[in-house]
């Protein structure tokens, strides 16, 4: 009897423990599950290839895309971005003074958790902070000069592997905020990011194939044919939210910064390959 009781108590304790750990899923466990899910769903796609978004799972459109990349539509914006990066502010300083002289090492630092200000810092956020700190007006967030600068820094930083860190509990709170955003239903159409880009990834929505949620952040900013211009990740987030008939948040809002933090973390280990070209 005693033995049975001990066994029962022990199993209750074990059960209790496993429940506790599964409620507070650790980011590294989420990451392993997320990547495993997509590898099972698309067994023909090597993990590293998810950097190519929908083209990693759709051979016919990949061919068209590869042709487009031979004369990439973002090329002019890259030239603009390079020029802007080299310009001096009125006080003689430049972006390199804020973000670092080695432009190839910049893109991979973002997004990161800033402990002092308890916030997530994005590349675009630091570019504008640099301007304001040096007495210049901030740029608009979603396109134009900001997107061109972001594209240039992304281009120079190609090949580095995403390595987003979640250093402490407060940082994890930001990660959790982004994760909740990703899985929460929203808008009149009641759709979560995950509905389309996890559960239905690879399916057609009308004639368009839904991209896998892994690798979404590697190739931004993107030149989108639909826009006819370059746009940042947060510009795309706004468009997605409007498509499900939800109110979009502002670019660089806490909501989108948290979402970027979560999504970039879910792409850890993939190579950066921005800027990209999309339909």
């Amino acid at each position, binding site marked *: 009897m005693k033995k049975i009781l001990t066994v029962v108590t022990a199993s209750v304790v074990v059960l209790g423990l496993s429940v506790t750990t599964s409620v507070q899923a650790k980011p590294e466990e989420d990451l392993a599950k997320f990547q495993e899910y997509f590898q099972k769903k698309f067994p023909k796609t090597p993990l590293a290839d998810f950097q190519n978004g929908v083209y990693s799972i759709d051979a016919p459109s990949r061919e068209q895309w590869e042709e487009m990349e031979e004369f990439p539509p973002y090329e002019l914006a890259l030239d603009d971005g390079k020029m802007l990066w080299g310009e001096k502010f009125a006080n003689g300083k430049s972006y390199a003074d804020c973000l670092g002289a080695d432009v190839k090492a910049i893109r991979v630092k973002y997004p990161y958790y800033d402990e002092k200000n308890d916030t997530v810092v994005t590349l675009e956020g630091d570019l504008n902070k640099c301007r304001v700190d040096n007495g210049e007006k901030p740029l608009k967030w979603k396109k134009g000069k900001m997107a061109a600068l972001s594209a240039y820094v992304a281009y120079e930083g190609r090949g580095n592997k995403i390595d987003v860190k979640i250093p402490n509990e407060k940082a994890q709170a930001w990660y959790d905020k982004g994760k909740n955003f990703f899985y929460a239903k929203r808008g*009149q*159409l009641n*759709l979560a990011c995950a509905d389309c880009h996890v559960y*239905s990834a690879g*399916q*057609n*929505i*009308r004639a368009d194939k839904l991209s896998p949620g892994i690798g979404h952040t590697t190739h931004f900013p993107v030149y989108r044919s639909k826009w006819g211009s370059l746009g940042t990740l947060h510009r795309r987030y706004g468009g997605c939210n409007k498509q499900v008939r939800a109110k979009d948040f502002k670019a660089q809002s806490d909501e989108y910064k948290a979402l970027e933090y979560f999504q970039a973390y879910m792409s850890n280990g993939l190579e950066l390959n921005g800027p990209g070209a999309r339909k």
Partner: protein
Amino acid sequence: MRNYMKVAITTVSTLTLAGVLGLTANIASAEEKKEMTLAEKGQALAFDRKKGNCLACHMIPGGDMAGTIAPPLIAMKARFKKEALRAQIAEPRTKNPNSMMPPFEAHGVLSGEEIDAVVEYVHGL
């Protein structure tokens, strides 16, 4: 004066004639609309991107470039009762709280009348 009178009369009769013609045209188009059956109205709503947009996810006979997210809408009459279809379109979360299907009535994507028309159409597939 007489001339003025004549012009005035002609103008008035022309206007009246135009008015009558316009009215007839209005009645005619209203009658055309009335002639659309409930199921036809339902199909128009089902195919309209800004309304039912069923083709975004469901294959439907006669619809182009249908999505593949949800089951094809075929042999519906044999498989579902009308009431069950209506309930699913109006509030899919009753059967599956996590359903990807928009809650068409609960979220006001379609009105009750519009849903009746869509149900009539889909049930006939």
